[in-house]
């Protein structure tokens, strides 16, 4: 057994930058690299791509990521654990094998499946958000359960160099290698809780190292253009020291660690995952040196019998239009334009949002102490059941050129398809996780 295991996180979301992961694999002296690339709605969008082409449905950046990382993963003996499989881990694994053959590299890939529970749902299950049956949300298109380390551990027990999953809980991607390496028992809850703290701190990658932190003059972050992503040196008792590759940009401090520890956490004493109910309230963070923070003290209780399921549904379309006003009285001209649009569209849209960007568009208030800005951008958004109807919003905003107030410029119009997400719970025993080797 190793004394410490070093795990790096090279991506915190599907659209994350590619370079920091490469730096971690080349210079990080890692045992494991994790790429966390699956947000709530990402998998529903991936399910739609899979329906159009059975060979798709995995992360759109998978090919670029694997092409750049694979030779270095193999040369430096770094195991990759990632949920880039999204809606189609089997196709993702095959794609990685294809890339490896093109690069003349030999790898074994383990695909972890079983999270797709769409066929197990009837639609009558209750949505946690609304308390109503799932089917009332709209036409259901996907259902993926958050699996835990029990789905990943069998893959780690093989000789696979790359473990690719669909939906698993984000911290489980990190906890699984720790349990695998240190042999932590699945009913020894404090190490599992502390391992979940480690996973939660790492899972958003750059957010631990100063990404999404900088506020010039107040929270300065050095060399952000070359922001490095984090890794943790974890001991067998779960104590972890977080750091980043020397020479990379960013900062890893008590402040960045605290922000990340609490990020998206509801009750800090009960952070529920498929592996453990973790308690963050006793976590101790200590600054060990520049860009080096130690974390210990995470605790836990027995895992729940149910797993959370993200259910995707068709939610119609959103139409948007924007146009700018500048100079004297810009806000009032924009507001006149907004009133005109409201009158022209109110018969077609029940839910129309009109924002004055630069004034109060983001929070609907400016807390009472900001002067009128020089420029205002009018933004209108409305939901519709068809793309054609949604397009009306942008068309009417564009028509303000010759049918609205003075001086409007730079109109833009957009239509997006909406995929909604609601959650439900499923008995974990209904799932049968599987590992397929390629």
């Amino acid at each position: 057994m190793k004394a410490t295991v070093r795990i790096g996180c090279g991506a915190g979301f599907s659209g994350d930058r590619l370079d920091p992961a490469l730096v971690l694999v080349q210079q990080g002296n890692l045992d494991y690299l994790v790429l966390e690339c699956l947000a709530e709605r990402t998998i529903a969008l991936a399910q739609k791509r899979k329906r159009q082409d059975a060979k798709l449905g995995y992360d759109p950046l998978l090919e670029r990521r694997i092409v750049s990382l694979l030779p270095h993963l193999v040369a430096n003996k770094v195991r990759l654990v990632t949920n880039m499989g999204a809606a189609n881990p089997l196709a993702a694994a095959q794609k990685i094998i294809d890339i490896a053959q093109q690069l003349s590299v030999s790898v074994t890939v383990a695909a972890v499946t079983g999270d797709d529970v769409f066929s197990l749902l009837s639609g009558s299950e209750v949505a946690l958000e609304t308390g109503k049956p799932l089917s009332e949300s709209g036409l259901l298109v996907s259902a993926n359960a958050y699996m835990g380390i029990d789905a990943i551990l069998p893959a780690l027990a093989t000789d696979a160099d790359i473990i690719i999953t669909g939906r698993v809980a984000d911290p489980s991607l990190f906890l699984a290698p720790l349990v695998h390496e240190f042999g932590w028992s699945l009913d020894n809850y404090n190490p599992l809780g502390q391992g979940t703290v480690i996973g939660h701190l790492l899972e958003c990658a750059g957010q631990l190292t100063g990404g999404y932190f900088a506020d010039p003059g107040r929270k300065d972050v050095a060399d952000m253009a070359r922001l490095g992503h984090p890794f943790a040196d974890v001991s067998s008792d779960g104590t972890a020291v977080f750091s980043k590759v020397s020479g990379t940009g960013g900062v890893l401090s008590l402040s960045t660690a605290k922000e990340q520890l609490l990020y998206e956490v509801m009750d800090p004493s009960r952070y529920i995952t498929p592996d453990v109910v973790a308690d963050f309230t006793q976590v101790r963070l200590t600054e060990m040196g520049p860009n080096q923070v130690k974390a210990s003290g995470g605790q836990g209780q027995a895992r729940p019998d149910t797993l959370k399921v993200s259910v995707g549904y068709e939610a119609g379309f959103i139409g948007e239009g924007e146009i700018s006003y500048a100079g004297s009285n810009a806000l009032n001209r924009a507001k006149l334009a907004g009133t005109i649009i409201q009158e022209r569209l109110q018969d077609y849209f029940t839910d129309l949002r009109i924002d004055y960007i630069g004034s109060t568009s983001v929070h609907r208030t400016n807390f009472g102490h900001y002067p009128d800005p020089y420029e205002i951008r009018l933004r209108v958004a409305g939901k519709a059941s068809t793309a054609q109807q949604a397009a009306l919003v942008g068309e009417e905003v564009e028509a303000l050129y010759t049918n609205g107030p003075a001086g409007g410029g730079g109109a833009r119009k957009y239509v997006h398809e909406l995929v909604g997400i609601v959650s439900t719970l499923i008995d974990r025993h209904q799932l049968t996780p599987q590992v397929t080797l390629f």
Partner: protein
Amino acid sequence: MTIKLYDIAHSRAGDKGNTLTLSLIPYKAEDYPLLCDQVTAEAVKQHLRDIVLGEITRYELPNLPALQFVCQQALNGGVTTSLTMDMHGKSLSYALLEMWITV
């Protein structure tokens, strides 16, 4: 005198469905009791009354130290179907920091 929370603390917003989480972390640990005393769930509810429609729960984490606010019905439906530009409500950390307290 009165100061903004921005002067003594930092914050990050997170989202879960239509629920917003807001951390509040003092730059100096000695300011933590001041935050506990004045930045109550009720005070935050009043400050964010135009934004947060549901209940606000406050959690204390004295050993960080930090506060965590969990705000229900705060995100216009949530990330997937919201008509707002900031669907995640990520910018709302700075709305919290606009709050005034007395020192």
